[in-house]
Structures are given as structure tokens and as C-alpha cells.
């Protein structure tokens, strides 16, 4: 009954706010769209309330939709010329958005800085690089991520290894695959009940890219060559995919057929203790089931050559739209929000990328923060292209092809041809 009442009440309030919209907006109301991730939206709502308490003339109206749907909705709003003031954008979309004049360049003054260089100095090296086009920065990171290998301590104990001891961490991809064979469990009928490791499957192109990008860098494979032509079918790339993605399938230790199919969560199997190792960011643990939350260890991302580490950088960033009538207020709120590095990390697991984020007490208490801080030094963003989504789709299709037995070279040749065609148009 109580719940029903509160639902009714929330409906009445929502109705009232819809009505209020129709009236003249006083001072600044900032609309803020974010992809659905409750820890983050709860945290932002809390910070927004604090901010309004300090600046009564600024209110923030937060709206969220699931990643994927969120981008669709945002695109429609931009097309109608009515984007929200503050948006949440994945870094690979920045070249496209910035070149079309959708995003307002960050005003260093709003961040209390005199110049662009001073602004950059607030952040870790390269934290802003993925958001900077032609010397102008168009957003600030809400999450400045890299990847690590998450291990399930219990599963490691089952095969007699202490996952807390870095000596037992798989260092190379080969270590991962050998360990996978030991960790995999099958029932009498031959059905896999526990996986050692798996890649993400059946998800959008960017999910795939997050996992293959570090490997491509480690193998010296370029998606696009220096001549602007697709190079994804080069020997280095074929070798990279054959020795990593393809290998799991030929070994019978991974692949789409062994994954629990899930439309949104790439980490379902690891989260529920059906997989012993998974590649993920520092944002992942809030997603884990309670048992796995108690049992995970963060290890460094495996490498081809441990002496020359390479990882991924990515950023679901916050930006102000150029159509916003309250750009100044929006940037000032972003400064207020993103400067709470500890608050973000504790509440959401996001790393804001500010200098020194890893040195605070909160960070030190966060499992794996040292691994992530180290990883950030060796990372790079995925390739930049205004037609990224199509190119990413071509590679995703190639992966799904060789996962079904098409030779890697043939699948990548096809992807390369598609990418060249996309770029020619």
C-alpha cells in the first residue's frame, strides 16, 4: 500500500514538473542526459541537489536511458535542434559530434583555469586526448577507463592457486588460455558449467573493440594504415586475432556458444560465478553478484610481450552542447561534479582521470586501483574515424564469421573491403 502511495505521489510530482515546464523557466534549468547506470545517476542526483543548495538559481533535471537506446534518443533530439544542456558521450563519437558543431569547447575559466594548457594540467596525461580535436577539448571525462583482468579467487583456489599472489596471475595471453583449460568445468554430459575465460559476444561493435583494441596494439596491427586504407587484414592483424580470439574457440574453452547470451551485460557469466576470468574496467564490480563481489581480485591486463605493455583507454565523457543557452552554468556544474573524484570512485567505481586520483585514501581502499593507475599509463584510445560505427560493425561481423569457422584471413579480408568501401563514400 505504501509503495502504491509513493508511486502515486511520484506520478503527481512528475505531472507537476511537466506542467512547470510549460511555464516560464526561471534562472537556469540544466537538462542532463546520462546513460542508465544507477550508481552514477544516483550520485549525480545527489551532487545536483548539493549544487542547487549552493546556487539556488541553478537546477538540474536528470534523465537516463539504457546505453544504445540513449544514443538513439540523443541523436533524435540533436536532429530536432533541441539537445539537452549536458550530455554523456562515448569518446569514439567525439570526432563526429565535434566536427558537426554539436559540442561546445570546454571553457577553462569555468574550471578555474586560465588556459587550455592549465586545464590539461588538472588531468592525467592523455586523459583529455580522446576528447580533444584540433587542439580544442570538447568534454571532460566522467570515467577515464582502462582494462584489467578480473579473477575469481574461489575458482583459482579450486585448482590450487592463490589469486592474491601476483605470481599466479596470467601474464600473457597464452597463460590465460592455458589456465582456462584448467579452470573450465564440465558436467557428465559434457556441458560446460564453468568457463575459464571468454571474450564478449553478441554485443555492439564498441564492446568488441574494447576487447580487441589492446591486442591489436600489442601485435602491431593497425585497423587503418598510414595510407588511409584498411589494414585490418594485414599479417599482424590476422596473427593477433588467430592467436587470441580464434584460439579460445579452437581450444574449446570459449566462444559465443559457451557464453550466456545476454543483451546488455557483457559480464553476466563472470558476475555470477560461471566464469573465472574476465576483462573489465574499474566500473565493473558494482555489477557483480554479492558472492563474486566478495571474491574478485584485479590483475593486470595480459600482454603479448610483458616488457611492452599496451592497454585500452576509454571515456564515457560529459560535454556541454553548443545549443545550450546556459553553457557557463553547465560547465560550472560539471566542474563541481567531476572534481569530486573520491565521491565518484566510491559511489560508482568511475575514475575521473584527475591527477592524483589514485593517491587518495578512497582510491587506496578500492581493490585494483593501483593496477588501473598503472594501466592508464600504457593505454591508447581506439582508432578515430567519422565512420567509426560502420568500421566497427565490419570488424564485429568478421569476428562473428571466424567464430563460426570461416578462416580468419578471409573474414578480415572481407572486413577490409567493407571498410575501404565505407571510407570511399
Amino acid at each position, binding site marked *: 500500500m505504501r509503495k502504491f502511495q509513493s508511486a502515486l505521489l511520484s506520478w503527481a510530482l512528475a505531472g507537476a514538473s511537466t506542467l512547470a515546464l510549460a511555464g516560464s523557466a526561471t534562472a537556469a534549468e540544466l537538462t542532463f542526459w546520462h546513460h542508465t547506470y544507477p550508481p552514477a545517476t544516483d550520485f549525480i542526483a545527489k551532487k545536483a541537489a548539493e549544487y542547487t543548495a549552493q546556487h539556488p538559481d541553478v537546477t538540474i533535471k536528470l534523465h537516463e536511458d539504457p546505453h544504445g537506446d540513449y*544514443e*538513439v534518443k540523443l*541523436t*533524435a533530439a*540533436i*536532429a530536432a535542434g533541441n539537445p539537452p544542456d549536458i550530455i554523456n558521450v562515448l569518446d569514439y563519437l567525439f570526432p*563526429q*559530434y565535434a566536427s*558537426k*558543431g*554539436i559540442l561546445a569547447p570546454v571553457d577553462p575559466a569555468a574550471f578555474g583555469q586560465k588556459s587550455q594548457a592549465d586545464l590539461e594540467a588538472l588531468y592525467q596525461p592523455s586523459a583529455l586526448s580522446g576528447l580533444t580535436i584540433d587542439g580544442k577539448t570538447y568534454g571532460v571525462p566522467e570515467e577515464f577507463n582502462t582494462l584489467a583482468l578480473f579473477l575469481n579467487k574461489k575458482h583459482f583456489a579450486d585448482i590450487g592457486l592463490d589469486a592474491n599472489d601476483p605470481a599466479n596471475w596470467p601474464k600473457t595471453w597464452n597463460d590465460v588460455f592455458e589456465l582456462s583449460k584448467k579452470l573450465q568445468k564440465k558436467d557428465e*554430459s559434457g*556441458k*560446460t558449467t564453468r568457463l575459464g575465460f571468454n571474450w564478449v*559476444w*553478441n554485443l*555492439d561493435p564498441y564492446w568488441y573493440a574494447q576487447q580487441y583494441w589492446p591486442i591489436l596494439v600489442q601485435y602491431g596491427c593497425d585497423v587503418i594504415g598510414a595510407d588511409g586504407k584498411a589494414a585490418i587484414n594485414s599479417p599482424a592483424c590476422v596473427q593477433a586475432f588467430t592467436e587470441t580470439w580464434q584460439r579460445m574457440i579452437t581450444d574449446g574453452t570459449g566462444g*559465443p*556458444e*559457451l557464453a*550466456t*547470451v545476454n*543483451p546488455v551485460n557483457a559480464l553476466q557469466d563472470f558476475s555470477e560465478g560461471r566464469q573465472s576470468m574476465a576483462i573489465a574496467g574499474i566500473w565493473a564490480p558494482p555489477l557483480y553478484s554479492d558472492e563474486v563481489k566478495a571474491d574478485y581480485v584485479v590483475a593486470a591486463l595480459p600482454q603479448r610481450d610483458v616488457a611492452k605493455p599496451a592497454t585500452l583507454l576509454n571515456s564515457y565523457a560529459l560535454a556541454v552542447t553548443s545549443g545550450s543557452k546556459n553553457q557557463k552554468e553547465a560547465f560550472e556544474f560539471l566542474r563541481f561534479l567531476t572534481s569530486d573524484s573520491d565521491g565518484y570512485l566510491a559511489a560508482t567505481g568511475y575514475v575521473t582521470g584527475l591527477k592524483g586520483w589514485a593517491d587518495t585514501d578512497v582510491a587506496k581502499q578500492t581493490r585494483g586501483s593501483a593496477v588501473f593507475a598503472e594501466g592508464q599509463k600504457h593505454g591508447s584510445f581506439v582508432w578515430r574515424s567519422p*565512420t567509426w*560505427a*560502420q568500421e566497427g*560493425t565490419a570488424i*564485429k*561481423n*568478421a569476428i*562473428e*564469421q571466424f*567464430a*563460426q569457422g570461416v578462416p580468419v584471413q578471409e573474414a578480415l579480408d572481407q572486413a577490409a573491403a*567493407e571498410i575501404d568501401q565505407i571510407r570511399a*563514400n
Partner: protein
Amino acid sequence: MTRTASGPSRYGRWGFLFCLPALLFIAIFQLYPVLFSYFISLHEYDLLSPPRYVGFKYYLGLASDKAFLRSLGITITYVVYTVVPVLGIAFWLGWSLTKLGRSRGVWRTLIFLPSVMPLVSVALTWKLLLNVQGPVNDGLGFLGMAPVSWLTSSAMAPWALILVSWWHATSYYTIIFLAGFLAIPRDHYEAAALDGARGWSVLRHITLPSMKPTIALVVVLSTVNGLKTFAFQQIMTDGGPAGSTQILTLLIYKTSFSFLQMGKASTYSVVLFTGILVISLLQIWLLRDRHRHA
């Protein structure tokens, strides 16, 4: 019996007036967007910046557009293989329901259930059921069969989606067929029985002719729903693996919203509209034919 109650002269004006509210709705919320799509198909438009006129560029590119041609084929296959078998299954199931006595109400409610479940959850459920290690393959294993890569093989996935569409659509069309069977006057059958007709001959000479309008209704509705299908493909496979289940609506959706190529997507839409127009003309012809018999 004449087809219409009145000639064009006296009452036609009323006919037009009656149509007006519906036409206004259609004009504002469907026709205008469709015409706008034709306009956009002549432009390069990324949704982020104003459209730029490019003429027939996208139309000329269609013949060599592999993604489009493939998607067209997938769509046609899907529509054919959903419409035809569902027609048969629903027909026989509806017929069987007429043979049941009092319990019919319960059975038809149970059979209709797939149509009332939220589409999104039904699609998600099938995705889990058809997982290689999922319950459906467990069932096949129990019967001594090897597991099937329902959604992870490009060869199998289109068929998996077709099977699911059978499950979903049969429920709905069975009820329509049942209603059709029940509406056939009993004396038709009695007269046939007196003439010594039985089995196949009753079906052919009594049941089928009486069911023709119902069959037409189901053909129209199932073609429409087949062409418009989107949710199952988007949720179960997102068009994969490797594009093998990328039906036209999904391709249009991705081309507009992920690739931000609204001009190209509109060109695809225009092709789809044209196809729809042709099918509509065929249907009008089908319906006309029906009335002549009436």
C-alpha cells in the same frame, strides 16, 4: 447484390466525410513523414548538421550495396517462411479447436497467451531458451539429438527467428481462424452430408470456400506483421551473427541511428515503401476478386 449502396453522385460526399478524420491522421502522421523520407533520400544527412542535396546518389549505389541486397533477401525469406507455414498451422489448429466441446474457451485463452505477453520479454525469454547450453537444446539432448547453434550460427539464426515467429504468430491467427470456422453455418455441412460428401471433399467444397475471406484477412495481417518485424531481431540477435538476421527495418534503424546516414536509410525506406505499394495493389486486387464471388 451490388457492391455499393450508392453511386458517386448522391452519397459519395458522405463517404468522403466519413473518411476525413482517418485521412487527416494518416496524412499528418504517416503520409507526411513518408514524403519527407523521399525528400531526405536525395540528400546527405547525418542528423547532426543540415541536409545536403546529392541527387540520386544513394539510389545508384543500391545495386552494389551488399548490406542492402543481403537484407532484402533476408526480409523476403523471413516474410515468406512466416506467412505460409503460419497460415497452415493456424488453420489446422483453429479447425482442431472447433472439434472441442465446452473446454474450448480455456484452450483458446491458453493458445492466445503469447500474443498478450510483452514483446520485449518474450524475445528475451527465447534468447535464453535458445542459448546453445539452454533449455531447448537440453530437450533435444534428452531425445538423443546434438545441440543446435540456434543463435550463434549464420546458417541457423534466420531459422531460429522464423521458428519463434511461428510460435508468436500462430497464437494470434489461430484465434482468427477459429472464429472463421465457427461462423460457417451448420446447415452447409448438413447439406453436404446429405449429398454424401465426406472428409476431403467437405473441406474442399464447403470449408475452404467459406474460409476464403478469413484466409485473406490472415494473409494481409501476417504479411504486414512480417514486413514490420523488428523487436525479435533487435533483441534476440541484433541482426547477427555476422548480419545474417539483419532484416530491412533493422538495417534502416542502424543506418539512421548508428551510422547517422539518414539519406541512405531513407533510400532503403523508399524501396521498402515502393515494395509495400506493390503489395497493397496486389491486395486490393485480391479483395476485389473476393467481392465478385460474394
